[in-house]
């Protein structure tokens, strides 16, 4: 009878009045979360630069910018989903469908279409559509997001295989290919697109109801519900946005490679997820943001690039990311451990 009302979460009660020591630890922890990743990035960059002079060269800087472009775009969308406390595992599949549907509509080796920019837009829309589908399935069927998106990952890669039919279409629209490989005032075009994405993501996050309510939902769905926030609507929007960025990523990667391919997104989901988490966005939601995720992406890009310079096989990258993701999550949630806590 005297239960806590639904919709109210328990904050650490008496802990609030514990001594200053606790406060100091809290402030230090806060600082570590805010500045730790950026500091790690600087240290990594400096270390690799000292280790190999070629790493710090302008040419390699350009490579880094170019390599980080697609992950930056993907991480922007993924950040919203994770801020809401969900997860999207379908990124690679969605990228594949977008890539193929776009490539088949551009001038290509398989079909007679030549739709130019419209084809790019179709590719992006396909991504947004599957993202929205993720959101609708999660909110309507009330199934955990990792399960739904795991399923949609499989569905989308199946559809991509059907479109591809074993013969990946080559893109022959040279203007688009040229643009994707080109530079403007010395910056790779795709990096510019990524930066625009990042800025939009940042503005959405801080100046729109969607962005702010994303934090509300991640903070506590129960309080959000109590305050009359349309949780399902904003969740669908969040997944839609994540799908949209996956679509954009797939389309741009295709334009760069000149190929629509089932495996176009290979390893990207893992990379993005790791980047978002080490940037400081917690998997339980509510904390972090797109700028933090961007720092995370840069850390991973520098790490991957630097590892090649010091001669580590690129195959180990995924392994390193796996370890990083685990360490980041353990470090972030270690203090919440309790004897009766149930974690599935």
């Amino acid at each position: 009878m005297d239960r806590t009302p639904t919709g109210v979460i328990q904050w650490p009660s008496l802990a609030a009045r514990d001594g200053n020591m606790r406060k100091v630890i809290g402030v230090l922890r806060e600082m570590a979360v805010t500045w730790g990743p950026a500091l790690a990035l600087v240290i990594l960059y400096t270390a690799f630069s000292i280790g190999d002079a070629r790493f710090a060269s302008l040419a390699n800087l350009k490579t880094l910018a170019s390599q980080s472009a697609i992950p930056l775009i993907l991480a922007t969308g993924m950040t919203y989903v994770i801020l809401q406390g969900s997860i999207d595992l379908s990124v690679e599949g969605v990228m594949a469908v977008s890539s193929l549907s776009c490539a088949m509509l551009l001038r290509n080796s398989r079909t007679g279409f030549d739709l130019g920019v419209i084809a790019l837009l179709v590719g992006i829309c396909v991504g947004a559509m599957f993202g929205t589908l993720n959101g609708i399935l999660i909110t309507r069927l009330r199934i955990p997001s990792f399960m739904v998106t795991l399923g949609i990952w499989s569905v989308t890669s199946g559809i991509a295989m059907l479109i591809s039919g074993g013969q990946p279409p080559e893109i022959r629209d040279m203007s688009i290919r040229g643009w994707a490989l080109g530079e403007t005032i010395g910056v790779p075009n795709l990096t510019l697109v990524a930066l625009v994405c990042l800025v939009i993501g940042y503005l959405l996050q801080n100046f729109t109801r969607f962005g702010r309510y994303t934090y509300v939902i991640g903070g506590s769905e129960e309080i959000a519900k109590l305050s009359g926030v349309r949780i399902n609507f904003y969740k669908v929007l969040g997944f839609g946005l994540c799908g949209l960025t996956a679509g954009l990523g797939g389309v741009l990667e295709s334009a760069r490679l000149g190929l629509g391919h089932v495996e176009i997104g290979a390893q990207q989901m893992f990379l993005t997820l790791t980047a978002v988490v080490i940037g400081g966005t917690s998997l339980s939601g509510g904390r972090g943001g797109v700028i933090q995720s961007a720092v995370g992406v840069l850390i991973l890009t520098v790490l991957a690039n630097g590892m090649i310079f010091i001669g580590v096989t690129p195959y180990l990258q995924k392994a390193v990311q796996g370890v990083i993701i685990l360490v980041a999550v353990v470090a972030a949630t270690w203090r919440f451990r309790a004897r009766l806590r149930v974690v599935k």
Partner: protein
Amino acid sequence: MAKGELEVGGEGVEGPATAALSLSPASLRAILSGVMPAVVLVALILVVGFFAPSFLSLYSFGVLLGESTIILLLAIPQTMVIMIGGIDLSIASIASLASILLALLLPEIGFWAIPAVLVACMAIGATQGYIHVVAQVPSFVVTLAGLGLWSGIALAIAHTTISVDEGYDAVGWLQATVLGIPIAFFGGLALLLALVLVFRRMSIGRYVLAIGLGETAALLSGIRVGRVKILIFTLSGLFAGIAGVAMVARSYAGNPSGADKLLLPSIAAVVIGGTAITGGFGGLGRTLIGVLTVTVLRVGIAIVGIDPGYEPLAYGLVIIGAVALTMDRARISVVK
């Protein structure tokens, strides 16, 4: 291990009232998850048989069962992990790594490579379970990280397949057939039956059930929940290792990403069988039906000559559909 019926409601303030109201969806779910999997399997076999009559022969059933072995070996531990409410996304990567390790070790130490690989895989599984329990990190995060780590290591060790020539005999017997069915399948089946027996007749089965259905109550009843979880994840590693051995026996080679494509089918097999991802409801017998269904789907698509793209498409839809039907939504208040 299967429970008769799951009661919905309960946790709300008005427990009894909601329980009475939602009785019908509960019993509906019991019927659906009880009979449906078998019906679906039979229907699927008939459909495939209709399009390709040769499919309905003893010979092709033998092939089918052989084909199902590795998915079976992955789905068995996945069932146990899902029964305690967790999930293991790393299991296929561990199997791939096992196949590589075995392919490297067989020519060196022969038969002893098998126990060595199995012990290594158990250690991997135990480590993941230990981290999950001690750091209290959700199992899907730990095993997702594991998925990256183990497949990364497998790829770093062997960039491509390693064929096994010298020392193959140590595993080759698994491919010998009895009645047209490979011994490996009988092995998998025997392991499944042994586990069913263990879970029915020994304390561990009760503990797993209690953890899946009410972990807090299990903890407060003095069950060493952490140990049980670590044990289950260790078994998961062991079975992944066995799957790796079976893969080498089957393809005469170790493949650093050979089993990766089997993760989804193995999860699909578990949920098609009717085991609920919320834990507690389901069982290994159901998973056997799920495994056969998935295999008929795979083989059928090839026999009937449909585009292979339909295969992942079907897994995805089936996973979402089966989870939607079997999940106990009363047990999770907020869906993340």
